[in-house]
């Protein structure tokens, strides 16, 4: 048993020294920071519990092993001890309450935009996972990118998440925790970058063959650089429905930039069938799409309204 502990100590040292960049504990924005704080807070309590059990365990094993007590020793008959049992029921309950309070607070805090920048209107970005790529639409800026994001620093971003097909999970570990992207549903996630830099984002939920490479880059930059980038992007070639439908096919693609967004044809948060129809050859050109079913039509109409408001209505 002693060597067992020696081993665990050795392990801990090895692991801690071998791993200096724990992305999750090195937050670059307020969301990730709240989560990292919660994690560190809980680790403290957990280490305490582990320590108590390990010490008790070692002491008891050392003291009451047969080699020490001798084969004649006959253990007493002890059925239990009500007081002790109450102690080790109540103390964990207290620890759990101490952990549950900040957990619930953080859960609700993460539903809202970060507090420090609450005076700024969040930038809305629709993030859509398609096997096996990421499509980002900036409805207000009227641009669309594939597999990369630009965001200004110190500015809340409201991601509206949906999937064109299999369920993915939108995750930028440096900026905050993940959330699922689902077809026919829309979920919302606030993130924010406090530091300029390049961060890696990816799909964290298994989506089949191309899942591993379903990644994107996030460039957090100053407001001026961001504005400049938006202007440049607005000069990019227009997104046509034909082009967009190509993106609906399974596969990988390089980074791409378009002016205009796909939201004029489809909102994957409302329409679970679009990508499948494209793949089955049911709506490959625009003429056909105008004859498509009512839900399609409703969409394009709704998009003329304030798109933020309308997605608010059908968000999860």
């Amino acid at each position: 048993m002693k060597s067992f502990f020696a081993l665990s100590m050795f392990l801990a040292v090895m692991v801690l020294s071998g791993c200096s960049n724990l992305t999750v504990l090195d937050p670059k924005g307020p969301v990730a920071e709240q989560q990292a704080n919660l994690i560190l807070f809980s680790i403290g309590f957990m280490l305490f519990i582990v320590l108590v059990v390990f010490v008790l365990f070692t002491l008891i094993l050392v003291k009451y092993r047969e080699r020490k007590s001798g084969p004649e020793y006959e253990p007493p008959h002890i059925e239990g001890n009500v007081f002790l049992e109450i102690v080790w029921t109540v103390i964990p309950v207290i620890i759990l309450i101490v952990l549950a309070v900040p957990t619930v607070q953080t859960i609700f805090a993460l539903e809202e935009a970060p507090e420090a920048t609450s005076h700024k209107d969040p930038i809305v970005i629709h993030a859509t996972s398609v096997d096996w790529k990421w499509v980002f639409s900036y409805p207000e800026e009227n641009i669309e990118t594939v597999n990369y994001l630009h965001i200004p620093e110190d500015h809340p971003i409201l991601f509206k998440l949906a999937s064109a097909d299999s369920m993915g999970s939108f995750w930028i570990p440096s900026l905050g925790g993940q959330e699922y992207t689902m077809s026919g549903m829309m979920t919302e996630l606030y993130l924010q970058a406090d530091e300029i830099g390049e961060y890696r984002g990816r799909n964290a939920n298994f989506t089949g063959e191309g899942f591993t490479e379903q990644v994107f880059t996030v460039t957090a930059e100053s407001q001026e650089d961001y504005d400049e980038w938006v202007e440049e992007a607005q000069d990019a070639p227009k997104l046509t429905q034909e082009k967009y439908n190509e993106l609906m096919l399974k596969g990988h693609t390089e980074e791409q930039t378009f002016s205009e967004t796909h939201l004029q044809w489809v909102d994957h948060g409302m329409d679970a069938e679009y990508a499948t129809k494209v793949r089955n050859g049911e709506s490959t050109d625009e003429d056909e799409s105008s004859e498509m079913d009512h839900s399609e039509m409703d969409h394009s109409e709704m998009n003329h309204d304030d798109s933020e408001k309308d997605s608010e209505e059908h968000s999860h």
Partner: protein
Amino acid sequence: MKLDEFFVTGDPLIYGADVSIALTMIGAIFVLTYFKKWKWLWTEWLTTVDHKKLGVMYIIAAVLMLFRGGVDALLMRAQLTVPDSSFLDANHYNEIFTTHGTIMIIFMAMPFLIGLINVVVPLQIGARDVAYPFLNAVSFWTFFMGAMLFNISFVIGGSPSAGWTSYVPLAGLELSPGVGQNYYLLGLQIAGIGTLLTGINFLVTILKMRVPSMKLMQMPMFTWSSLITMVIIIFAFPVLTVALALMTFDRLFGSHFFTMMDGGMPMLWANLFWIWGHPEVYIVILPAFGMFSEIISTFARKTLFGYKAMVYSMVVIAGLSFLVWVHHFFTMGAGGAVNSFFSITTMLIAVPTGVKIFNWLFTLYKGRIRFTTAMLWSLAFIPNFVIGGVTGVMLAMAAADYQYHNTYFLVAHFHYVLISGTVYACFAGLYFWYPKMFNHRLNERLGKWSFWIFVAGFNLCFFPMYFLGLAGMPRRIYTYGIGDGWMSLNVLATFGGVLMGIGFLILVYNIYYSFRYSPRETTGDPWDARTLEWSTPAPVPHYNFAHLPEAKGHDAFWIMKEEKKQGKAPEKKPYKPIHMPSYSGVPIIMSVFFFTAGFGMVFSWHWMSILGLVGVLATMVIRSFDYDKGFYVSVEEIEETEKKTTL
């Protein structure tokens, strides 16, 4: 369908598997024929309804599945050791982690535990068999055929590759068009029949077949844990059955329960899956808790500390296990109130579990601790499970879970609880009850080698994964880049995985070695243990008890031994004929028909599925008109047997 679509082709690993499967089958057929063992195999084993033999067959099947799942695991570790490895391609890797997860949970952990329950529980409660011995055989054979159906997928038709959770839409027909996913659905469905029957069978057995003198609150802790497990099975498994059936309809008959098209609800699958799936976790952990309780109490030479608290804590865990399923998808965006509720219910499970940990510690306190191999596995469980448990609490904190979810942090957590809980318990139980099953002990020296190597390997393999998770490595990726910085920890993990493999091989060698060289048992009580199964002689007669034993407390056999020491010898009563059930070939034949029906459905060969189902029905009819009410063991035979056995 062309032949090269039927057989999986093109991968040297698969060809290797083909060859080894063929050689093993030829070898088995040759050995059985050469030693003229076919009849023996049929009459003694394949048609048996004896719970002890069924238990042994469960365990053999589980060890085989542990080997298969372990090979899968080592292939994954081989692939992930270095960045940008091209050992496996993405599809192959996806198949391997899918079969690894499914096999380890459904076809390894559960049958291993159910096998030990089969062997031990009737003996612990002083019963001569289970309540429904025929049904017990049906349970085993449907499990076995389900497992075989699932396992042949990798050489015939292709393995499932949508993960053991099989989330739709990915597992739906549009995104997973092959037959692999059908194997998953049908294999689990057929095996699930067996599990549900086991649940009913053992619930009734434990409630109705105990010796009359044993009160509920005097049952051994392993029996208690089994009872509670059976209740969970009865409530949880029907959900899986329905969910699997719905997805089968989607895939085979074009319904739209979980599809993206035509208003299906993919998220409904995730909910149904985990409403079964979370209780399932406790189905594989509670019997483990029960075993550790028995073993720790035996080798500390003390009665279990806080017996009642141990029972109640399991009841609470079982109840809570149905109230936490959403924690598997906190990231679905269900909203603050929902996530808060499920965070708290999940955390609450830590309380009864913590109570159990401290009760085990205080069972050891003032004991006389013997470090046998069975005890070592049980002791190693405590610190390792605590690590798994506290990280479980961390995962329960939804706001933090958004960062742990789908990462190696989660992978590390559930391997810490499942391996140090369930697998350690299976090994501990195997060493502990081995003399009951095979009339000789496993070698202790080899046992300890295997223990230390496996436990060291386990910690080396999975502890680094917590840090890989925090470093942002998601689960289920088939490779990563050098720039990710995950290599050193992955190398460590692979090294640990190899050690675990070596530990397992030593265990298997130990089974062979002990069969050859271990001295045969002379008493039925090699460990000086405390519960009724140890009051049976060696070898255990097929009717278990010549006289039904008497239970005067929850360490019934210990009390009997104490009374004997004080000179209170039990009076010798005359033997009476014992009623026992007859063996039957119907369960295995019925299960072969289940297999046939399942195989037909996998490939949508409807003539074959109809043939299979008609066969199942026919065997049921045959069983209904079977008036064989069993037989009586004569007094002479009992006298003869009891003379031969020793006590």
